[in-house]
């Protein structure tokens, strides 16, 4: 019966699609393709006009300073991603398990956890830069007061530490998102399954290990993918805490800040011209796409493996 209706007046389908299709295509898809196309151009000046084929890619991977900066940012981005993923997944999961218990105030803690996410990365970054500022010294004095004064150091002045610091601030800010995602997943678990487990004598740890964890594994996958996409283009936290030059000595340079400088800074002050900027964008795009596909694959495989275990 519906077929009859469906055949009538289908022009409206086009009408419904056209607005979104145009905006999405013109301002999201085309610009990405544009970068790929533009990455084949080079020459002197900010706006390259000369077709150079894959020259930009060859330079990026083999010549300094391109090579050094690119692989530096690649390594930092991976470290940054791993630290953030650890905090958001491990601590996020742990707190989500806690706030889904029945106790007075559990909704309060849930709501509070998301509060930092509402701040912009920029505000969080500036705020913690000030807190760690040795002139004001509020964090250093606190450490001294609790007897940990020996830990005090230039937090944002040492390359290896600064990267960890900006990753922790990012985690502080986004931990709420993973907590909300995981609590949603845990709340959606059928209470019958949990009751059955309890009858079988499963303690809290067994419940977490064999029921909660496998059942929310798909959500852990989503959170990890979201972190991955966010971190591989993260820029704001670097801008706020260690400047677009990713001080000290590019120790906090991430793909986002590298792309920003390469494409939009004047040549000689960190800029590489738009052709090279487009090359960097294209490489990041492929890394993100491949990474997401691998993560999707990994989490799907794991999910299936878990299901099989469950059947056995």
């Amino acid at each position: 019966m519906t077929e009859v209706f469906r055949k009538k007046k289908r022009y409206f389908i086009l009408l419904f699609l056209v607005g979104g299709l145009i905006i999405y295509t013109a301002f999201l898809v085309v610009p990405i393709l544009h970068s790929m196309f533009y990455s084949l151009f080079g020459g002197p000046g900010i706006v390259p006009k000369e077709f150079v084929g894959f020259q930009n890619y060859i330079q990026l991977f083999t010549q300094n300073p391109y090579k050094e900066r690119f692989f530096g940012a690649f390594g930092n981005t991976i470290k940054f991603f791993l630290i953030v993923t650890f905090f958001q997944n491990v601590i996020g999961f742990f707190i989500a398990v806690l706030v889904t218990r029945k106790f007075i105030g559990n909704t309060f803690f849930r709501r509070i956890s998301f509060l930092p996410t509402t701040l912009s990365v920029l505000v969080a970054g500036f705020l913690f830069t000030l807190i760690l500022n040795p002139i004001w010294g509020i964090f250093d004095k606190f450490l001294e007061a609790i007897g940990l004064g020996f830990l005090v150091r230039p937090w944002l002045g040492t390359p290896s530490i600064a990267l960890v610091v900006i990753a922790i601030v990012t985690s502080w800010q986004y931990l709420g998102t993973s907590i909300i995602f995981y609590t949603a997943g845990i709340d959606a678990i059928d209470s019958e399954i949990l009751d059955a487990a309890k009858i079988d004598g499963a303690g809290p740890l067994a419940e977490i290990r064999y029921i909660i964890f496998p059942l929310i594994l798909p959500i852990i996958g989503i959170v990890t993918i979201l972190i991955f996409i966010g971190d591989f283009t993260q820029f704001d936290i670097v801008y706020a805490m260690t400047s677009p030059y990713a001080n000290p000595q590019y120790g906090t340079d991430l793909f986002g800040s590298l792309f920003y400088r390469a494409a939009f800074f004047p040549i000689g002050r960190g800029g590489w011209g738009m052709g090279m900027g487009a090359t960097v964008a294209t490489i990041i795009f492929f890394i993100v796409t491949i990474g997401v596909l691998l993560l999707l694959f990994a989490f799907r495989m794991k999910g299936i493996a878990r299901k099989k275990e469950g059947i056995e």
Partner: protein
Amino acid sequence: MIKFKNGTVRTLLYVILIIYSMSIFYPIFLMIITSLKENREIFTRPYSLPQSFNLDSYMYLFKISNYLIYFRNSIIITLTSLLIILALSSLISYVLAKYRFIGSRFLYFYFIAGLIIPIKLGTIGIIKIMLGLHVFDTLVALIIVYVAMGIPFGVFILTDFIRLIPEELSNSARIDGCSEPEIFFRIILPLIRPALAAVAIINFIPIWNDFWFPLLLVRTDNVKTIPLATALLYGQYETNFGLIFSVLVAASLPVIIFYLIMSRQFIKGLSSGALKG
């Protein structure tokens, strides 16, 4: 659910969660009290409450910048983009969820692919298009970018949601003489309100807080948004602690208050987003 009968376990639970909440509250609290102190007091008594509520730095902030204009710009941009995202993605989702036509499956995946495409990476092209359309350095440029950025998620959530609406509802409307667009506006749209709310809420924060696109698409003071103004003021007055803290509070307090009022809706929206994925 596990119930904690054991008192010590329960105490431990509270201790952990209270420490966690302190790690959230204290930096925000510190930011607010510091913004109310006099410049000297910020250094001499950093941890204590302000001796008097000193609003001087806020006065100064409003004097040296057009803060109300930045605030207005952020509101216009966020609301307009959210409305357009909801309108366009609900229209798309209705068609993709309820009609089969050549390429309909492809179109669905085409839109969903946007979920994993970081739009930032297309910025060079976006700047060129905006210059070509003569909207570079206007609010319109930012709105268009955010709409493009928000559509994939909108389509993702709404298509799923509309699919669950039973076809019988549409069919009885058809028998009553409704045209297909009328079915969308009269039957479907009222039913998907919760999903629309979820889409709006999930898109709200990234749009309101976006710094990247204002940084690259805005030059004029009248077009600045709050995040861009925050960054520029911070860079300019880095050593004036009183002012800087009031800049940070001015940037975050409206959202914090909005969140505290709407936190139930936020969490509901985010949770439904999490489970759809």
